[in-house]
């Protein structure tokens, strides 16, 4: 038993001390924090200076209608176009020219400038003009704009989830979809990344004959499990560090911005990100709605099942990867066996869009029970709410699944790891499983 601990220790320490591990651990959270913060920061940079717009309005419709905005200042000028243009441009300002229309309604305008005006400038000018022209047109037909305002309706659809106990919970599908995808893909990514590490390690030990030296003092099963568990601990360490560091980075940057108006921009940005709704459509009410929904999701269950499915899925697949690494002579030969092993995982990812649309369909439920796909599919279903008995059953099946694959893998590994120069076929592997000790 202490030998397996020694092996775990070696596998863990050599990997954790690698430069690539340290780099990944640090770069991961920086990238994640950057992904959250960059849009805010870039937006801030672009509109650092207020844009000044001189308005030359020949129609007189828009006098005093353009109000100074956050980053846009308006002032009104009179005179002929040519001289006002040169005056404004000399100050690096913009000139908004609204000519007297041939017909009665001014729908054309020109914006002169030395540079490209920001999207916000153009959007604001357009919306003000549209508003005023529409109001005038309504009035011309004898319709009170107030009436129109009254008729306009915003529909606010709140979906409410009722669980077995009859408790009601506001839900928001966008948040759940986001979480579902995130959880599912992370499991997929982790299984492949760390499974591949196990395979590479096994194959290295085989090709440089370390096994032949070690096998005199250690059982093949100990060697295989030591490696699998060691790498699993590396995965967990990296995952924990990522979470902690991401929080620290985001927190540090956020608190640095607290006094600037970026903080508020940042919050709305965050809210947009979590709901995935298009920019601009977010207000305070929506934001509180999102946090409502976030509260509604059972994070304890989420995190616990994430860890469970990560470990279970990893154990199931990495033992198969270890068997492959042990069976072939060179790493290049692993391809033909990688295919059938990774197929269920890839299938699960392809099926994920169907599962997310109908998380409670028979297909989704079955996929979340079969151990080969359950780590990904069940993680995608959990944000939408899954009965506890289903989670328990899926857990149980996954445990049975990895006990079974580990048993098979150990048999293949035991024979394969000491076998050289033999072309390995599936028939050959089948024979190995039944070899007696």
């Amino acid at each position, binding site marked *: 038993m202490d030998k397996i601990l020694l092996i775990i220790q070696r596998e863990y320490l050599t990997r954790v001390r690698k430069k690539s591990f340290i780099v990944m651990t640090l770069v991961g959270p920086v990238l994640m924090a950057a992904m959250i913060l960059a849009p805010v920061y870039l937006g801030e940079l672009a509109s650092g200076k207020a844009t000044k717009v001189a308005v030359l309005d020949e129609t007189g419709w828009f006098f005093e209608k353009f109000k100074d905005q956050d980053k846009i200042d308006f002032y009104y000028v009179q005179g002929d176009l040519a001289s006002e243009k040169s005056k404004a441009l000399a100050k690096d300002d913009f000139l908004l020219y609204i000519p007297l229309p041939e017909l009665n309604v001014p729908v054309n305008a020109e914006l002169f400038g030395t540079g490209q005006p920001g999207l916000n400038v153009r959007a604001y000018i357009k919306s003000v003009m549209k508003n005023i022209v529409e109001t005038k047109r309504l009035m011309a037909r004898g319709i009170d704009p107030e009436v129109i305002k009254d008729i306009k309706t915003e529909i606010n659809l709140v979906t409410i989830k009722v669980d077995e106990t009859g408790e009601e919970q506001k839900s928001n599908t966008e948040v759940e979809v986001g979480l579902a995808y995130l959880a599912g893909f992370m499991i997929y990514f982790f299984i492949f990344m760390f499974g591949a590490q196990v395979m590479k390690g096994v194959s290295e030990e085989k090709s*440089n004959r*370390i096994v032949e030296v070690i096998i005199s003092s250690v059982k093949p099963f100990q060697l295989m499990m030591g490696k699998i568990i060691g790498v699993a601990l590396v995965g967990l360490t990296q995952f924990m560090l990522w979470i902690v560091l991401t929080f620290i980075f985001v927190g540090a940057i956020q608190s640095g911005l607290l006094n600037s108006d970026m903080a508020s921009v940042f919050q709305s940005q965050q809210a947009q990100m979590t709901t995935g709704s298009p920019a601009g459509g977010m207000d305070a009410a929506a934001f509180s709605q999102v946090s409502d929904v976030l509260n509604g999701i059972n994070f304890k269950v989420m995190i616990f099942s994430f860890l469970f499915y990560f470990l279970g899925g990893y154990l199931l697949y990495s033992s198969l990867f270890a068997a492959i690494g042990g069976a072939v002579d060179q790493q290049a030969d692993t391809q033909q066996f990688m295919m059938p092993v990774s197929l269920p995982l890839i299938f699960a990812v392809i099926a994920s869009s169907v599962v997310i649309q109908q998380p409670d369909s028979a297909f989704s439920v079955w996929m979340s029970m079969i151990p080969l796909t359950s780590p990904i599919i069940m993680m995608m279903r959990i944000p939408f709410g899954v009965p506890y008995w289903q989670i328990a059953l899926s857990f149980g099946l996954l445990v049975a699944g990895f006990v079974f694959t580990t048993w098979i893998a150990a048999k293949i590994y035991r024979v394969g790891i000491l076998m050289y120069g033999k072309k390995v076929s599936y028939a050959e592997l089948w024979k190995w499983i039944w070899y007696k000790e």
Partner: protein
Amino acid sequence: MDFYLRASEITKTYTGHKALDKVTIEVPKQSIYGLLGPNGAGKTTLIRIINMITRPDEGEVFIDGHPISRNDIGNIGYMPEERGIYKKMKVGEQAIYLARLKGLSRADAYKKLKFWFDRLEMGSWWNRKVEELSKGMQQKVQFIVTVLHQPKLLIFDEPFSGFDPINVNILKDEIRYLNQQGATIIFSTHNMASVEEICDHITLIDNSRNVLSGEIHSIKEQFKTHIFNVAYRGTHDIAAIIGTDDFRVTENKKQRDVNKADIQLLNGKTPNDLLLKLLPHVEVVAMQEVLPSLNDIFIKVVNENPVR
């Protein structure tokens, strides 16, 4: 004789070809045993069977009189030809790890490693990664790791490949030292000259079969051709003096003022008979028996047993 290891009638067939065909070897206790043969003869397969890495199709291996079991493997130190060490690990850390896997405590492992690292003047390598070392240096590390837990049986597969002559001698000395400490040692190599002086017993394996086994001096006795090398001054035409009935001159050349001739004794003649013939006519400077090298013996044996 008291055998430490006996592999009896070992047969191993891989798809299509026989790697070993009823090979028997008997390794006396505390001997240095050479397993010789050309590439692909089956040496490594035999070693792998002794280490229980591969299973024989037929035959059995006995250690100290009883059939070999898993527990005995812990008493074998095996150094495979492809070096079984982690390339990315530091030398010291790796040595301690492998030693602890073999059951040594950390403190014990450290103490023994210190002894060996000092002995082979490798102290400064402790914190270097294996991949930074040259092939010969890696091999020294491998050697230490193999012998560290003081196994009763040491098996080296092509131990000298990749070593310069100085290091070959160092390694030979260390192997003799271990042998004196009580270890039984098996060598496998295709380079017969390199083990000629160190082995006391050998087995020649050719084409999956044991073609010759025994104590090295008696083998040389058995294969000696009764040729004596004589250095002498005087007339060059030595054949005229000794005649051709009982002696045959196989070679005769002049080096400065000394002639050197290889003379084969026929019809049971002794060196004294040869001297009696020579002394009245030439001045004998030196005379020495020419023993066949293992290479010569091997070639002779293989040619006499054509299987190919």
